[in-house]
Structures are given as C-alpha cells and as structure tokens.
C-alpha cells in the first residue's frame, strides 16, 4: 500500500498487527497529510508530536494486541481530553485545558489508539454547516465547480477530516443530526447510537437528553469497530445503559433476507429534489432485490419533530450553558461588579447562534411560557416516540434520506434560521425518540456531490442497523471522489 492514509480503520489495525507497517509509519503518513491540509481548517488543535512519540512507544514496548492498536484518531473538540485544550469551538472555552478525560475517548486510548488532534465544529455543536465555529469555517473536500461548500455540522471538522484522510476514523456527537448530516455531505458513514449506548461523561453538554457520541468512519465495518470500543455502561453517567453487548463488528453480516423495512410517507416532504427521491427509490430497490420486505408506514407526527426540537434543545442548552460565567474556567471579561462580569463574559464569549439559542431556551422556560412551549414540546416528543413504537410493531428498520439536499455553499442559509434548521428535518426524530440511526453514502449526484440514505433502528438494535447498512454498502460500492485540490 503506497498511501497508508487510504486504508480503512479495520485495515490499518490489521496492517499494524501483521507488521505490514509500524505504528510510527502509519502516524507519520497522517502527519504528513495533515500538515498539508490547513486550508480545510479541520483542526482546532493538532497533537502531532505527541502522536509520533506514542506511536514509537507502541512500536518498541507494546504487545500489538489491542483493538485499535496504533490507529491515529482525531476527535471532535467537544470531548474533554486530559492536558489537551478542549474548546467546543467557542471563544468562551478557548483557553480551557481539562484535568480529566471523557469516558468515550479514554476507551479509545485504552485500546492503544493515538490522539492526533481535536476537530473543529459548530460552536457548542449548534449549527448545521460549521459556520458558527469561533475558529472559522471548515471546508468540505467536495466542491461544486471549484466553489467551496460547507461540510455540514455540527461535526463538520470530523466529517471533512475523515473524507480527506486526515484521521483513520473519528468520534463526533449528534444532538439533532450533527453526526449524520455532515457524514452525508462528505460521503462518509456516520452512526448515532441509541441514547445511553455511550457515556456522555466528559463531553461538553449541549442538550443532555438528546446528545450522543458516535462513530464517523470510512465504511460500515469501521463504524462497528468504533462502536464496539466506545459503548458501554459508565457509572459516571447515570443515563448510560447497562445492556449486555457482543461485538458489533464480529456479528456483522450481509443478509437482509426477510428483513422488514419501513418507508415512512411523511418523509416525502414538499420541494424534495428529484435526485433525493430517486436515491430513496434506489435504496428501496436494493433492499427489495436482496430479499427484504418493504412496507409503507406512517409516522404521523414527523412534521412536528423539528419545532419540538427547537424548544427542547435550546431549553436544555440555556440551562447547560449557564455554567460559563467566567469564574472557574474559560474566558473572562472584566466588569465593575459580579453581575456585569457575568454579562460581559457571556456577551463577548459566546457567538451569535449560541446566544440566540440561549435566549430562546430562556424564553420558553420562563414563567408564563413554560406550559405553552416547553411542556407542550415534551408532550409532542412523546407522540413522536409513540409513532416509532407503533411502527416497530411491523418493521425492523426504517429507511429515509439523510438530508433534503446535498452540501450547499457558504452563506447560503445563514440569513434565515429556519432554512438552516430544516437541514435536520430527517435526522432530528431519532434524537427525540432516542433511537439509533446511521447515514450511509450511496453515490454522487450529477455535480459530483455525495448523497446519503439513513436507516433508523429499534432502541439498542444497532446490530440490525449495521447489518442493513453493510448489505447496502456491498451493493452500491461507494467510492470517494475527493481530489486533493487543497494540497
């Protein structure tokens, strides 16, 4: 293999274990590429020197028996990493160095994966285009007639880094679509696990009842491997689930015979581009041809998911982000008294989108409006969950498009908040209902931009999700069309 960065994660680990290359050689290959890829702005922090040293240590001292041995992995800058700056892509945390490690990332390093950096995202994971980051836009490695496109968001740095071969795989977070939408825009695989499958401990909180960490990878097997490592009960997160699990990777099989696949009519939205509808039909046909049983289903409250989300998520965010007050960590702006110090710190430390969401959240939780907005949204959330409960009496998995369009240009949706929020129209339901969902690249459109389908599974049934995605992947055989134009 001439270019080690083209390997999948599974292949990379196999290479190291079989001594086809050393960990140092693998890490150096990534370092070389990362150093030539600043234009994409994927990284908030690079940790290349430490990465090389760790690789050397693995080559000299270690048994090569761990699950992720030698794999260079950059993670979203929302995971606290001990001794390595963690900013949530916000000015308010721009000088914060955690004294502890998030559970999810600790599990990666325990398997001898190597941290190579922290990846850019929307500020506090609030955005669908990576345009709200305090540290600048991330560019999508895919372009439209030489024009730059957004990588999606909020895990935009993660998505571009995987698509551009700057990390062997990564871990992002998904509150309303933040793993799946950028995965779709960049032609990679993105999996949001069931709520509770992975510990949230040590992840900068956005909306705690919706946030979930998950893999963003080059293919489905890589996603299964990462999920094997990062999932599991953690006593530090009381919402993490104590469920028995076997290896998702070892159990993966290419067989959808008899699988009941639901196609929800409510996801056929007005103005859906023909290419997206065609893609959906293509997915249905592939599954049918391979022996799956396709069923038309109804999720009647789908239309209300996004409005409910834009009450619940800001409400939780306004409460979670109250901690940024300039006292114990992070950025502080001076003020003549304590209140003014708080106000100046938060006004100067947060960006426009974050402030907007804190304001919405504060409003819907404020006295006189709580019942009309927040309580109402919690009830609608239950209706959405019940829609899925009913649907899963008849089907095993649900197939939809991931996003209503392919990647778009910078500034195209920044003037209208609703236009931006509509990006998450197909993804947000899985967060509200706590269900696992995966985005899978299918093919590129006539402009050469990736299009993706989403599978939504039953609670804690990531295996069916992975199996179905794997079967489709084997049929469509999606190949990256990324040309290294930025190098």
């Amino acid at each position, binding site marked *: 293999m001439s270019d080690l960065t083209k390997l999948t994660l599974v292949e990379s680990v196999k290479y190291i274990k079989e001594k086809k290359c050393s960990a140092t050689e693998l890490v150096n290959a990534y370092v070389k590429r990362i150093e030539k890829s600043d234009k994409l702005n994927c990284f908030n922090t690079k940790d290349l020197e430490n990465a090389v040293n760790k690789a050397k240590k693995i080559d000299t001292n270690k048994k090569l028996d761990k699950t992720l041995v030698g794999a260079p992995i950059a993670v979203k800058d929302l995971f606290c990493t001990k001794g390595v700056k963690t900013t949530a892509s916000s000015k308010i945390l721009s000088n914060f160095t955690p004294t502890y490690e998030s559970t999810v990332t600790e599990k990666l390093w325990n398997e001898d994966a190597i941290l190579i950096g922290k990846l850019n995202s929307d500020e506090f994971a609030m955005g669908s285009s990576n345009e709200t980051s305090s540290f600048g836009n991330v560019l999508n490695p895919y372009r439209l007639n030489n024009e730059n496109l957004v990588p999606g968001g909020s895990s935009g740095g993660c998505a571009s880094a995987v698509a551009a071969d700057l990390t062997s795989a990564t871990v992002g977070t998904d509150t309303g679509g933040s793993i799946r939408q950028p995965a779709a825009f960049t032609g990679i695989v993105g999996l949001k696990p069931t709520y509770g499958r992975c510990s949230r401990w040590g992840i900068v909180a956005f909306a705690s009842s919706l946030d979930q960490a998950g893999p963003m990878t080059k293919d489905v097997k890589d996603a299964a491997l990462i999920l094997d490592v990062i999932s599991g009960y953690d006593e530090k997160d009381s919402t993490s689930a104590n469920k028995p699990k076997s290896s998702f990777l070892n159990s993966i099989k290419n067989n959808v015979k008899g699988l009941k696949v639901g196609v929800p009519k409510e996801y056929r939205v007005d103005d859906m581009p023909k290419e997206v509808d065609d893609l959906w039909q293509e997915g249905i046909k592939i599954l049918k041809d391979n022996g799956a049983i396709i069923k038309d289903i109804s999720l009647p409250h789908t239309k209300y998911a996004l409005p409910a989300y834009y*009450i619940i998520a800001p409400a939780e965010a306004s409460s979670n982000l109250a901690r940024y007050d300039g006292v114990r960590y*992070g950025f502080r702006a001076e003020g003549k008294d*304590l209140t*003014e110090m708080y106000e100046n710190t938060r006004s100067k430390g*947060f960006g426009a989108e974050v402030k*907007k969401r804190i304001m*919405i959240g*504060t409003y819907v939780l404020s006295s006189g*409006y709580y019942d009309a907005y927040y309580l109402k949204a919690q009830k609608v959330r239950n209706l959405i969950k019940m829609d899925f409960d009913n649907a899963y009496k008849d089907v095993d998995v649900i197939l939809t498009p991931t996003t209503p369009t392919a990647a778009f240009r910078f500034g195209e949706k920044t003037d209208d908040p609703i236009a931006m929020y509509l990006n998450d129209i197909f993804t947000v339901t899985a967060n509200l209902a706590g269900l696992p969902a995966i985005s899978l690249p299918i093919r590129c459109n006539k402009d050469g931009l990736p299009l993706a389908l989403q599978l939504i599974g039953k609670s804690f049934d990531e295996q069916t999700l992975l199996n179905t995605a794997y079967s489709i992947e084997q049929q469509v055989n999606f190949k990256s069309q990324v040309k290294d134009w930025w190098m």
Partner: protein
Amino acid sequence: MSINKDTIKKISKLARITVTNDETDRLEKDLNSILKFVEQLKELNTDNVEPISSVSDQDLTMNKDEVKKINAKDDILKNAPEKNSNYYVVPKVIE
C-alpha cells in the same frame, strides 16, 4: 405570541447576556421567526399525552458511597481566570 424589544431585554437579563441595539434588531427578527415555526405545535391536541423529559428507560442506580480522589485542587485551579491561593477571585459582591 411574539417577542418585542422589551421582552428581549428581559430575557437577556435572565440569561446574563447583554445585547447591543444592533443585536436586538437581529434577535427580534430571528427569535420571532423561530417562535412562529415552533408554534405549529399548537395544532396538536395533547390533552391526554404525558410529557417526557427523557427516553431512557433506565432506573437510576446508586453508586457506592466511597471517597475517590479524582482531581487535584491545583490542577483544577490552573484553569481559573483569576485566583488567590486556593480561591477563585471575582469582582466585589458586597459593598
């Protein structure tokens, strides 16, 4: 319901975020467009629906009541914007 400039002032006080006049104009426009969007929920009758705050069916578990030394004071204080010996320093609270 719609949000006017006075409401924005009130919310910004509650959220401890001061907003400039320019920001107020933009916020008034954006917040009203978001509110109009979320008010679609009013179309639904939810009289007999239970509100849910989480989808987790997990019972809260009790951890063992034992002392664990996790973080050292010095390390934690390294992140403080201003400190004095073992204390965080803030602007004067009482005159």
